[in-house]
């Protein structure tokens, strides 16, 4: 028997969880690039260190991004991955596919790339993992021909993403998929031609369950919500009452604002509308009996990001409630203002949240012409260090 060239990785073929090693081997059968990628990975497993070099700038005509350049630091050993660039292909909203379009993508990547992919990258793109520089443009041409386009990279708008929303979720308060698609289409230039201090991400969730983690992972989350009151169907409440759900313990007691009360005799649930903060908990527990109100829209937040450099931010409330109807002009205008301000004031590699932190939320709100409201903060400042503008003093 031939000795395996990847004894360490081979150990990851067994076990119940889907094996990426099996997948790499499958691709390696057809693609020498994939084969060398596998070989180099084995080297990393042996030496416990990465074998890729810092990326260079590569790309396709007319675009400043969408391709991540990548070079092996052991090209003699693994010549097929001397260059091994990644193409980010913008997914359809909600990651919905028909099989025809998936097959087209596969065919293109069989022809021009390693045959390795990520479905999907953690921003949301289809990641076509690894090809050589000369193949980039032809691959792009083929993608374009097939109706696909690249996603974002670099100091640009990044590929927006959205939860499944109205396509398959009863909780959706906004049309996440249309918003995602519409904003993506409107801002193609911002997506493809990096021109800002740093990246900017938009993610759209249909309700406060936030199934795309927008509040943690995007500079501007759009989160569906409602302005009026929960709708309760008492007949369905009775069904739950007769099920094994403990309405008092699992629903009412866990409402964060004690907005709910339950009459066990009548099997009736009621809500104090002004106390409900629309956290989704009771709806999640009793989806047949409780649903969002009818006056639907979104909360817009700003500033979320991972820790580099100033530490991680969760996004902050910017617009407590806004109606979300196409063409979403009000929000697009606001985006333009925000980007202008950021562009003018931001340092290189400074996310918008970091800039707001540095220059102050007050300055930012003034620049984008939004009124400060109490919903923007958990609580007011505790320090006495605040500014007065010349027109406010004598």
């Amino acid at each position, binding site marked *: 028997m031939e000795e395996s060239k990847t004894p360490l990785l081979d150990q990851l073929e067994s076990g119940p969880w889907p094996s990426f090693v099996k997948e790499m081997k499958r691709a390696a059968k057809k693609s020498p690039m994939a084969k060398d990628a596998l070989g180099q990975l084995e080297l990393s497993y042996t030496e416990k260190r990465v074998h890729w070099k810092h990326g260079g700038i590569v790309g396709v005509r007319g675009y400043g991004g969408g391709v991540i350049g990548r070079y092996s630091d052991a090209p003699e050993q693994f010549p097929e991955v001397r260059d091994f660039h990644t193409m980010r292909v913008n997914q359809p909203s909600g990651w919905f596919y028909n099989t025809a379009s998936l097959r087209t993508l596969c065919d293109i990547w069989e022809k021009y790339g390693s045959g390795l992919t990520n479905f999907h990258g953690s921003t949301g793109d289809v990641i076509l993992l690894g090809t050589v520089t000369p193949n980039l443009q032809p691959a792009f041409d083929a993608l374009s021909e097939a109706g696909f386009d690249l996603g974002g990279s670099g100091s640009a708008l990044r590929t927006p993403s959205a939860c499944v929303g109205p396509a398959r979720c009863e909780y959706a308060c906004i049309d996440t998929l249309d918003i995602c698609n519409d904003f993506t289409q409107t801002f193609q230039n911002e997506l493809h031609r990096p021109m800002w201090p740093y990246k900017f991400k938009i993610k759209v969730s249909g309700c406060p369950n936030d199934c795309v983690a927008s509040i943690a992972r995007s500079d501007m989350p759009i989160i569906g919500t409602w302005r009026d009151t929960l709708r309760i169907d008492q007949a369905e409440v009775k069904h739950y009452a007769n099920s094994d759900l403990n309405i008092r313990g699992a629903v009412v007691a866990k409402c964060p604002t004690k907005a709910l009360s339950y009459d066990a005799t009548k099997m009736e649930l009621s809500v104090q509308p002004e106390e409900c903060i629309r956290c989704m908990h009771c709806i999640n527990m009793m989806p047949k009996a409780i649903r969002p109100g009818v006056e639907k829209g979104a909360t817009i937040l700003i500033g979320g990001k*991972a820790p580099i*450099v100033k530490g991680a931010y969760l996004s902050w409330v910017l617009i407590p409630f806004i109606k979300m109807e196409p063409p979403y002009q009000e929000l697009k205008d606001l985006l333009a203002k925000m980007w202008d301000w950021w562009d003018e004031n931001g340092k290189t590699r400074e996310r918008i949240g970091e800039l707001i932190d540095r220059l102050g939320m007050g300055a930012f709100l003034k620049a984008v012409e939004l009124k400060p409201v109490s919903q923007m903060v958990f609580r007011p400042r505790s320090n006495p260090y605040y500014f007065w503008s010349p027109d406010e003093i004598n």
Partner: protein
Amino acid sequence: MAIAKTDIGPPDFRQMLPPVITKNYGSWKYHENLKPGVLKHVAESGDAIYTVRVAGSRLVSIDFIRDIADIADKYCGGHLRFTSRHNIEFLVSDAAMVEPLIDELKQKGYLIGGTNNAISNVVHTQGWVHCHSAATDASGIVKSVMDELVPYFTSESLPAKLRISLACCLNMCGAVHCSDLAIVGIHRKPPKVDHERLGKMCEIPTVIASCPTAAIRPNPKEKSVTINEDRCMYCGNCFSVCPALPIADALNDGVAIFVGGKVSNARTAPMFSRLAIPYLPNTPPRWPEVVSAVKNIVEVYAKNAHKGERMGEWIERISWERFFELTGIPFTDKHIDDFTHATTTFRTTPTFKW
């Protein structure tokens, strides 16, 4: 081939939807969780769509995609989707197809689950497979951890959902900073300055500005920079902006574990994950130390949390001091914050648990 059109954007999702969705778009009434991995959504019209969720490994070959396309053709009229956590969802319009689909999937070894109070797929990143920054591998740890935790994927037996994420360096592309359980690749030694290349390849002011702790100062003599090693906490951001500052170190790189984050707004506001284990070694191919550390935390949580409590909600209720006690994880100087908002985490009351 003609010159490619640019800026066409992604295909319109509307082309991709199965007819029952197109018809009932925005008119879903409620859903049921038929069993682990299987959802039924019912529309106002009375129509229903069934979803069968399958574990995705994310790093897949085109042949894998073709395989699942075949399955979708057979049972789903050619329609499927992926989730925000990179699982595959087969969208079944015909109720009669659900069980046959499940049977075929099972028979082929696909894992069905990830719904409701499960551990769903691990959101993760490139690792040694494709990124120059990686302090550890991504896919290998995920595979090793999930091989152990599969029963939590295929059942819904946990107190609540448990989201695990992994990022192979502090850039945190896995956005692990708000996960119930986060695995993060870390360095533990300052970058080495390659003076010769630095002057040529990098803009010195940008390099200096990149450091969150102001550890980098100009070194005019070398036309390069000097790193104050005492102030460096190995974030690697200077390396991100300048290749002449390599930070990878096979002997010292490894993995840290953070716990207790969440992003949903249900009950409690989103929370950051917080440091549980400062360092575990890189031990490919199966990272046994990481696997058993993760398993321990999951099991202690599963055993102790109240029903409905996410990891972070549980810890905040019982207190962090109790979390360390129950998990047996030692509390060290590393756990005490010393970054920007450190003082907001210090205990400003003599009330605490023993």
